[in-house]
C-alpha cells in the first residue's frame, strides 16, 4: 500500500476515506489526487452517494412490475396510473441535519425530496413525513419535535404542496438520533418525464437556481486550514432552505419542461455540483467539463473545493439542446433565478474542472460512479426470539387494574395518541385536491389527480418495535401495513419507496438487520406484486455505539381509478355492524400491549418474536376488502395495527363520531382478543343487508370473517372488558401531545 505523500493520514481520514480507499484512488488515477479531487472522491465514495455497503443487497429487490415505468436509479420512481398520467415519488432521510438543527434540517429535507420529484417533470401534489423521536422524557425530544414539525410546515406550506400524512413514533432508541424521513409524490404526463442521462457530446451544461455558498461543506473539511484563509468563525455545516426560491424553481422548471429544450436534468442534492455532474455524465456515458468561474457564487473567494462540495439548496443542473439555450435563460430570468452556462458534455469520459484558467481536477468518471467501492460487509443472521405465550397474569384484572385503565393508558401512549398538534401545522388542503389527510385518522391519504375523477392513495408505515425483534418479519410488516392502508381506501396498491434507516454497517449484527429487513421487504413485494421504485439508505444512525432500532420506513402509493368507489375511515354509519376480516390468535409478542401494559422491552431490547406476516393471507384478505369497497359493500374499513382490535375499533369510532360495541367472545383470552396484533386483519363496517353476503363470500374464499360488534351510541364498549364515554376517551387521545408540548 502506498502511503499518502500529499496528505496526512488525518486529512484522508477526515474525508471519511480508509487507507485502502486512498490507495485505490491513487491506483485509479495513476497518481495522488489534489485536494479538490480528494474532496470529490470523498463525497462520491461516501456511503450516502455510493451505497457501498448496501448496493449489492438492494439489487435483489423486486423493482419491476407492469405499471413501473422507472424503478430505482433515477431521481425518483415513476409508475403508470393510466390515461397517460404517471406518478413520480420517493422518500428520503434527513436525519443527521435535523438532529443538529431541527428546523432547517427538516425544511431542507422536504425541499430536497421535492426537487427529486419535480426534476423528473412532475408537479409535486403531496408530501408526507415519517418521524421518529426519542423518549418523550428525554430533555431534547420536545424541542427536536417542535423544530422538525415547524421546519416541515415552514417549507411545505410556503411552497404550496399539501402535507397530507405521515407517522410519528417515540422510542428511547432514537434519543441521540432522530429520524426525519420525507416523502414527495408528484404527477406528470407520461410523455413529459425527464431523466438525468446527459446524452450527447458538446451539449451545454446549465446551472440554475440559487447561488452557491459555503453551505453544508462537511465537518472534515472545516478542520483543514489550507484551503480556508479566514479561519475565524467556524463555518456552519447546516444548509438553510429557502422555500420561496424552491417555489420559483418548480414553476420555472415546469415551464421549461413544457418546451423541448431539456436533454437531461438533475437536482443538486447531497454533494451538490459533484454528484449531479458526475451522475449525469455517468448515465449519459459522456464526460463533462465545467468552468467553475461561471458558477453563480454567493460569497467571494470560493475555492474549487468549496464549490464542488457545497450543499447550497435550491439548485439544478441541466443539459440543454444546443441553440435553444435562450429559451431557458428567458424563463429563469423571468422567475428571478440565477442561470449560467457553466460547461459542456465531452467525449473523454472524464470530469474536468477549470478555475481561473487552471485545470483543477481531471479524473475519470467511472471510478466515481458505477465503479465505486462495492463492499460485501460481513453480516450476522438475527437470532429468533421466543414466542410470548398467553398467561392468565396478562389479564388486567389479575394485575390489579381494569380494562378501562388499560384503554386510557393506550390512548395516551405517545405512539397512539393523536398527532393533531403536528398535522394541524401542515397545510393539508392547498391545491384543492386533498380528499383525505391525517385529519380523518385513516392510514392513507387520498389526493385527487387535478381535474380528473381519479386519485392516488398514499401511506407511510414501519413498526420499529417489530423490526427490532425480527428484522425479516418487521421488513415484511412495514410493506404490508402500507398495502393494507391503501386497500382500506379502495385503492389498488401499485408500488413503494423505501427509506432504510439503520445503525453502523461495519457491525455484523447491524448489517444482519439490514440484510434481513431487505429480504423481508422483498418477500412482501413479490407476494403482493408491489415493487420498489425508489428509495434511500441512511446508515450510521447511532450514538455512543448504540444503534437506533432498525427502521425501514415504507411509502406506498395506490390508484383509486373512480372516486365514487373509495372510502375514508370516517364513513362508518350509526347502526352498522363491525366485521373482523382475518384470523385472530391473539399474538402479544412485541405488541403495544406487551410494551405499554405488561412492561416488556419498554426501553430495552425486544424480548419476544413479533407477529409473523402470512403473505398469502395478506394478499387474499386485502384483495377481498378492496373488492368489497369497489362494490360499495362497506361504509368504512380500517386495518388492525398497534393495539389490535380494541384500538382499531376505537379509532373508527373517533373518526365517524359514533360509539362502538365489541361483543363478548370465548375463543381466546379477552386481553389477547382485544389487544393481540395478528397481521392481515381489517375491521369493516357494513349495513345489515351486507352482513351475510360479506361473511359467506369470505368463507367461500377461505377467509376468516366474524361479526364482532356494532356502531352506535355514545360509548366505547367491549363486553366484559371496557365501557367508557366516547367523549372522555377522545379527550384523552387528543390531549397527550398538546399537553406534552405545553409542559
Amino acid at each position, binding site marked *: 500500500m502506498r502511503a499518502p505523500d500529499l496528505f496526512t493520514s488525518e486529512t484522508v481520514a477526515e474525508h471519511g476515506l480508509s487507507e485502502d480507499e486512498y490507495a485505490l484512488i491513487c491506483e485509479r488515477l495513476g497518481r495522488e489526487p489534489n485536494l479538490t479531487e480528494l474532496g470529490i472522491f470523498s463525497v462520491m465514495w461516501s456511503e450516502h452517494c455510493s451505497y457501498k455497503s448496501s448496493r449489492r443487497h438492494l439489487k435483489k429487490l423486486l423493482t419491476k412490475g407492469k405499471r413501473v415505468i422507472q424503478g430505482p436509479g433515477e431521481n425518483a420512481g415513476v409508475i403508470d396510473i393510466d390515461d397517460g398520467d404517471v406518478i413520480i415519488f420517493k422518500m428520503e432521510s434527513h436525519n443527521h441535519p435535523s438532529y*443538529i*438543527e431541527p*428546523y*432547517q434540517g427538516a425544511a431542507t429535507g422536504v425541499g430536497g425530496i421535492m426537487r427529486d420529484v419535480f426534476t423528473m417533470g412532475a408537479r409535486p401534489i403531496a408530501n408526507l413525513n415519517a418521524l421518529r423521536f426519542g423518549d418523550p422524557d428525554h430533555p431534547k425530544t420536545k424541542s427536536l419535535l417542535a423544530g422538525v414539525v415547524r421546519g416541515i410546515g415552514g417549507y411545505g406550506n410556503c411552497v404550496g404542496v399539501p402535507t397530507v400524512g405521515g407517522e410519528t413514533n417515540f422510542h428511547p432508541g432514537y434519543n441521540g438520533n432522530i429520524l426525519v424521513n420525507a416523502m414527495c409524490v408528484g404527477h406528470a404526463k407520461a410523455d413529459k418525464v425527464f431523466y438525468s442521462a446527459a446524452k450527447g457530446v458538446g451539449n451545454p451544461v446549465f446551472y440554475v437556481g*440559487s447561488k452557491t*455558498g*459555503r*453551505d453544508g461543506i462537511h465537518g472534515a473539511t472545516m478542520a483543514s486550514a489550507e484551503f480556508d484563509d479566514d479561519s475565524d*468563525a467556524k*463555518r*456552519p455545516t*447546516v*444548509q*438553510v432552505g*429557502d422555500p*420561496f*426560491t424552491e417555489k420559483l424553481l418548480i414553476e420555472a422548471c415546469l415551464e421549461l419542461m413544457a418546451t423541448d429544450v431539456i436533454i437531461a436534468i438533475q437536482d443538486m442534492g447531497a454533494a451538490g455540483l459533484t454528484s449531479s455532474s458526475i451522475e449525469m455524465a455517468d448515465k449519459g456515458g459522456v464526460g463533462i467539463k465545467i468552468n467553475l468561474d461561471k458558477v453563480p457564487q*454567493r*460569497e467571494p473567494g470560493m475555492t474549487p473545493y468549496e464549490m464542488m462540495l457545497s450543499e*447550497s*439548496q435550491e439548485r439544478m443542473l441541466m443539459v440543454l439542446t444546443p441553440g435553444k439555450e435562450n429559451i431557458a435563460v428567458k424563463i429563469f430570468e423571468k422567475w*428571478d433565478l440565477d442561470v449560467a452556462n457553466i460547461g459542456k458534455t465531452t467525449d473523454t469520459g472524464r470530469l474536468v474542472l477549470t478555475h481561473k484558467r487552471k485545470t483543477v481536477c481531471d479524473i475519470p468518471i467511472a471510478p466515481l460512479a458505477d465503479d465505486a467501492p462495492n463492499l460485501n460487509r460481513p453480516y450476522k443472521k438475527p437470532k429468533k426470539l421466543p414466542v410470548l405465550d398467553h398467561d392468565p397474569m396478562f389479564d388486567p384484572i389479575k394485575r390489579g387494574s381494569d380494562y378501562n385503565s388499560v384503554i386510557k393508558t393506550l390512548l395516551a401512549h405517545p405512539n397512539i395518541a393523536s398527532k393533531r398538534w403536528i398535522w394541524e401545522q401542515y397545510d393539508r388542503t392547498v391545491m384543492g385536491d386533498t380528499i383525505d389527510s391525517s385529519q380523518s385518522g385513516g392510514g392513507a391519504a387520498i389526493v385527487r389527480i387535478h381535474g380528473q375523477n381519479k386519485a392516488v392513495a398514499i401511506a407511510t408505515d414501519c413498526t420499529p418495535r417489530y423490526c427490532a425483534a425480527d428484522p425479516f418479519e418487521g421488513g415484511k410488516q412495514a410493506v404490508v401495513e402500507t398495502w393494507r392502508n391503501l386497500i382500506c381506501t379502495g385503492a389498488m396498491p401499485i408500488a413503494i419507496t423505501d427509506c432504510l434507516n439503520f445503525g453502523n454497517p461495519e457491525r455484523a449484527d447491524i448489517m444482519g438487520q439490514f440484510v434481513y429487513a431487505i429480504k423481508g421487504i422483498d418477500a412482501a413485494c413479490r407476494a403482493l406484486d408491489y415493487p420498489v421504485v425508489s428509495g434511500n439508505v441512511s446508515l450510521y444512525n447511532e450514538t455512543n455505539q448504540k444503534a437506533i432500532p432498525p427502521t425501514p420506513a415504507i411509502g406506498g402509493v395506490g390508484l383509486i381509478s373512480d372516486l365514487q368507489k373509495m372510502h375514508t375511515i370516517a364513513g362508518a354509519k350509526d347502526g352498522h355492524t363491525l366485521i373482523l376480516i382475518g384470523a385472530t390468535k391473539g399474538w402479544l409478542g412485541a405488541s403495544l400491549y406487551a410494551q405499554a401494559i405488561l412492561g416488556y422491552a419498554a426501553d430495552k431490547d425486544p424480548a419476544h418474536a413479533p407477529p409473523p406476516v402470512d403473505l398469502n393471507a395478506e394478499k387474499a384478505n386485502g384483495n377481498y376488502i378492496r373488492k368489497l369497497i369497489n362494490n360499495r359493500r362497506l361504509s368504512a374499513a380500517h386495518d388492525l395495527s398497534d393495539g389490535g382490535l380494541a384500538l382499531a375499533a376505537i379509532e373508527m369510532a373517533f373518526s365517524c363520531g359514533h360509539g362502538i360495541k365489541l361483543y363478548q367472545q370465548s375463543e381466546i383470552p379477552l386481553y389477547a382478543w382485544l389487544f393481540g396484533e395478528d397481521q392481515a386483519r381489517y375491521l369493516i363496517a357494513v349495513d345489515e343487508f351486507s352482513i351475510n353476503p360479506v361473511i359467506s363470500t369470505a368463507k367461500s374464499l377461505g377467509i376468516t370473517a366474524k361479526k364482532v360488534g356494532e356502531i352506535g351510541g355514545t360509548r366505547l364498549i367491549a363486553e366484559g372488558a371496557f365501557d367508557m364515554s366516547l367523549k372522555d376517551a377522545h379527550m384523552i387521545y387528543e390531549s397527550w401531545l398538546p399537553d406534552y408540548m405545553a409542559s
Partner: protein
Amino acid sequence: MKAIIHIELKPGVLDPQGRTIARSLAHLGFGDVKGARQGKTIELDLNTEDKKIAQAQVKEMCEQLLANTVIENYHIKITE
C-alpha cells in the same frame, strides 16, 4: 435591569429574507441598496440589579433558548 440581545445569522449563512428585502427595495427605486441582512432583537426586563450576574444569565439564556447557535451569533447589551 434591561438586556438587549441582537441575534443575527452567522456570516456565510444564506439569508433569504435579507436578499428579498434588498431586491424589493431596488424594485421600489432605492437603487442605492447593495445588500440587506435581517436579524432580530430581544429586549428583556430583568429583576437582577447586578450587571455581571445579568450578563452571565442572559448569555446562558441565549445559549439555551434565544439564539440558534448553529447558525446565529448573538451580542448582549446590559443597560441601567
